[in-house]
């Protein structure tokens, strides 16, 4: 059984300016101990996906349909109270901006401790505090006892992100959702943070959903890749297969337009720009930018086509190759 | 939107006061002193909202009062806004000693509450309409200066200002094209809200005997005339009070609405 199974998720935001369909059918799954990467450009719905899983969409966002099965139970049917028990305890999250994601007026140690106290009721205050300090040590913060009393602004970006990781892992969750955890950091710090995540989650056997738009990070970290474009999943594959042989034209473009250190030839670029949910094109949302676009792409959205359990592409080009599920 | 509607109505009333008001607002009618509103016992249909202690039609006075109250509100905000905008922008843009000097002046003005300031000035120059407008303007500009300065300080760190500087655009042009248009929405919002504050301020000044002087009619003045009559002849003070409240309400709503409309990262 998969640890997490998201099926055909539709999420919309009801704003003053109308309804924004942010997710239009997202499905993927995460196995125990696995690192799943979600890539895609800004605004394609990566964060909304993760927020949907934890049901932190705010009062404007709403899951319209679909299911999110976590350890066999559908989270979408959970009450607020039941959901609270899941958050930070069984599923926890790391956000992109380490500065703004920590409460500036509360000592970092306390912020770790808060989670512990919430979910490990058996612990006393002192024990919780010690646990928090241990977590800080685990994420590699030197002089943890002293730094316990620091405020977020007194720490560097990398340190803050370590604190975020400590918070997220404090209760030994089974699933960690990391939403662009290193985008705001320098490469050298990024390397450390990613290394840290890999190491700890391996030790704790935690599954990870790693959201990023950096293909390098994907190549380094993940076991399987999910590519999102304009609110839906367009490709899913194992990471080696994905880089060796990307199927969706968007995936191809993405890989070819990412410069790498070993880059020799000219970069290819994808023409045009990313559509917003409000002006989503008809048919396949990628068709205006697609070099292989066909007539059918303009009018009809392709279905998910599976090459076995784990390999999926959402593109008319592969209509003939596989049978639709 | 409600705000806009109220404000447009009030403005129209002010403009067409001559046609709407049934009576002269200033001519006393000694035979009809303190007639209650038409629906009350002793009231007559001739005076919809009753008459005041000189027998003048409250309704007509209310209509004419719209004019002065709006003029004072709007014009003094124009005066204050103009000074505040210029000083705020200049202070923030040039910084250094310019900013130091201007900000010390702002601090000085800020530490003397404006009503006090106005009070002192108005005892020196008797409060005619013009004087009142200028005085309110001259004492309330600091609010604009402060807020606009803050805006410009962050604005001038924006890259498009730097871009203009690298091009070699003159300071004046940068101020005119880059800074002022971008503080305009904030400026409009605070101006709108200030109109409301000013109308209330004028009423408060009237209370102190320093508001618009008769025969000019303002709501504040009427409210003040009526305040001694609140217990006995409620209509004299209540209607101008309601007029002020509705208008101010309208303006505040309008300001909030404008904030929403003008704000998005246009």
């Amino acid at each position, binding site marked *: 059984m998969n640890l997490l199974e998201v099926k055909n998720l539709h999420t919309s935001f009801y704003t003053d300016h109308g309804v924004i369909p942010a997710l239009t059918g997202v499905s993927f799954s995460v196995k125990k101990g696995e690192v799943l990467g979600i890539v895609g450009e800004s605004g394609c719905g990566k964060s909304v996906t993760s927020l949907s899983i934890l049901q932190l969409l705010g009062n404007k966002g709403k899951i319209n349909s679909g299911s999110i099965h976590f350890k066999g139970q559908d989270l979408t049917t959970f009450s607020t109270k039941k959901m609270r028990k899941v958050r930070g305890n069984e599923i926890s999250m790391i956000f992109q901006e380490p500065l703004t994601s920590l409460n500036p007026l509360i000592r970092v140690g306390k912020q770790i401790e808060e989670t512990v106290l919430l979910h490990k009721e058996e612990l006393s205050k002192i024990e919780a505090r010690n646990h928090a300090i241990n977590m800080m040590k685990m994420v590699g913060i030197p002089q943890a006892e002293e730094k316990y009393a620091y405020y977020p602004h007194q720490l560097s970006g990398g340190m803050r992100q370590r604190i975020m990781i400590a918070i997220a892992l404090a209760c030994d969750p089974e699933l960690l959702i990391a939403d662009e955890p290193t985008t705001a950091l320098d490469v050298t710090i990024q390397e450390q943070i990613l290394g840290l995540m890999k190491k700890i989650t391996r030790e704790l056997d935690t599954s990870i959903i790693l959201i990023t738009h950096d293909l390098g990070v994907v190549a380094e970290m993940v076991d399987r890749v999910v590519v999102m474009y304009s609110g839906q999943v367009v490709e899913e594959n194992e990471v080696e297969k994905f880089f060796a042989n990307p199927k969706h034209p968007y995936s191809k473009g993405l890989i070819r337009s990412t410069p790498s250190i070993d880059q020799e030839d000219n970069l290819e670029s994808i023409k045009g720009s990313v559509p917003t949910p409000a002006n989503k094109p008809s048919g396949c949302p990628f068709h205006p930018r697609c070099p292989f676009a066909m007539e059918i792409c303009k009018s009809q959205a392709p279905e998910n086509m599976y090459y076995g359990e784990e390999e999926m592409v959402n593109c008319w080009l592969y209509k003939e190759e596989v049978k639709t599920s | 939107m409600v705000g806009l509607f109220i404000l447009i109505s009030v403005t129209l009333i002010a403009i067409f006061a001559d046609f709407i008001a049934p009576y002269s607002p200033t001519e*006393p009618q*000694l035979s009809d002193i303190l007639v209650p509103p038409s629906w009350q016992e002793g009231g007559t249909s001739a005076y919809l909202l009753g008459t005041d202690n000189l027998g003048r039609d409250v309704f007509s006075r209310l209509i004419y009062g719209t004019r002065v109250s709006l003029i004072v509100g709007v014009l003094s905000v124009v005066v204050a806004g103009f000074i505040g905008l210029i000083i705020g922008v200049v202070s923030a843009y040039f910084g250094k000693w310019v900013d130091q000097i201007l900000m010390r002046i702002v601090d000085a003005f800020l530490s003397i509450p404006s009503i006090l300031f106005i009070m002192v000035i108005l005892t020196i120059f008797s409060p005619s309409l013009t004087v009142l407008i200028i005085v309110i303007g001259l004492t309330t500009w600091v609010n604009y200066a402060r807020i606009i300065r803050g805006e410009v300080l962050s604005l001038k760190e924006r890259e498009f200002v730097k871009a203009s500087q690298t091009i070699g655009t003159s300071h004046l042009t940068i101020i005119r094209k880059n800074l002022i248009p971008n503080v305009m929405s904030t400026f409009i919002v605070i101006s709108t809200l200030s109109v409301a504050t000013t109308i209330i301020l004028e009423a408060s000044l009237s209370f102190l005997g320093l508001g618009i002087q008769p025969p000019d009619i303002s709501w504040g003045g009427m409210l003040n005339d009526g305040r*001694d009559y609140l217990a006995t002849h409620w209509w004299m003070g209540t209607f101008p009070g309601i007029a002020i409240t509705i208008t101010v309400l309208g303006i505040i709503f309008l300001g909030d609405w404008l904030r929403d409309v003008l704000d998005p990262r246009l």
Partner: protein
Amino acid sequence: SGESGEVGTDNGTENGSVSDGNLVIAQSADITTLDPQDSLSTNGERIFRNMYNRLFARNQDMEIVPEIVESYENVDDETWHFNLIEGITFHNGEELTAEDVKFSLERVMTDQGLKEYPYFTQLVEVNVLDTYTVEIVTDGPMPTLQHVLAKSGADILPKDYVEEVGMDGFVENPIGSGPYQFVSWDVDSEVVLEKFEDYYGEPGIWDMVTVRAISESSTRVGELLTGGVQLITDVTPNEWDRVNDNEGTSLVQGETTRVMLLMNRLTEGFATSDERVREAIDLAIDQQAIVDSVLRGSGVPVRSRVPEGVFGTDPDLYDTYVHDKERAKELLAEAGYEDGLEITLTAPRGRYPLDGEVAELIAVMLGEVGIEVNLELLESGTFIDVYSENENEELIMIGLADGLLDASYSLVHYTIDRAAGQTDYNNPDVDQLFQDASRNLDEESRLQQFKEIQQVVAEERPHTFLYQDKVNYGVSDSIQFEPRLDEALYFDHIQPN
């Protein structure tokens, strides 16, 4: 302070029962000093009258009666001898003697810095003849000496005490010889006095008297209605019903020496220098209508500045007015203004009861006969600036009172010197009459002279008279109160019911 607390929260006693021997009075403004010789306000007088004594005083009918004088003698035209009542003590226990009288009067007649000084300039010398006898020498025949000695500023201060603590010390803790002694003064809030047990005359009937200052008229009335105070001054006409309709309070109206009038500029170049225009203005104004409407009867139309009750009044000019719009128009036409005339009327707002409203009415009345009025309504302070700098144009509306209750006080305005720059009225006959009267010790002929001046003035109209102001008190049923023409309050004339 604690005192006001006790008084204010005393809501249990409905409408101010006074069984506790406490009296609370509220006036519209506070006193400005406790130095009786450096104050000109009625508000101050209301307190000083109960704290200090003078040689003479006015009784309820405004007759001058001896106060601490046993007997007196007019030695010659310029010399007077006064024998003091013996055994009068100040609040500190010291006896009041001729030395104190000399000290007090000399202070007020020599110290130019005192506000009362101008009224005492005719006194030349004060001599102590013995412990209880003083001699006063004047600069010539002075028919108003007793008026002056009964007037505010003639209060007797304790010489030794003042010399001991200095004037500053005195003002902080003033001592008089009146029936009530000083307890405390919270500026802009209240003055508290208590009964002086060793008073030489009838002992006071109140244990404690608090005089509060409440400037808001509706608040003042509110306090009266709720029993927080027993007597309030200056009730505006619109509040009358509230006071009268309320169970347990009523309105009491009293007269004042204050006459509201328009000063005309007779200066060359102003339209009002033409006598016909001035007459037209007078004829255009319907004084009675003003009194009846806005003032709700709280005034008496007059054609002179000397109202009834003041020495020198002319009954022919009291409670009367002229009003004839047609004639006014004719006069204007005669004066060459058949096409209308534009003048400026300067008037205060908030200085006298309903002054602004009255001015607005006048403007309209003048408009009806073809005089277009630029009404310049000014806040009290600005107004008085314009007035004292003589910056007004044709007309300025003002209220003038008579602190001496003698016509000389008012009529001096029509002398050439005093009128210069103000009305610029110039009538040598009037001047002569006034000079004669001011040295005339014969009451009968002096009265005649005063009447004559007023007749001339009423015709020539340097002033256009409007009405004599009345003052309105709100009175709790728990006390009995009779107003006086001089607007003073004697606490002991206020009787508990």
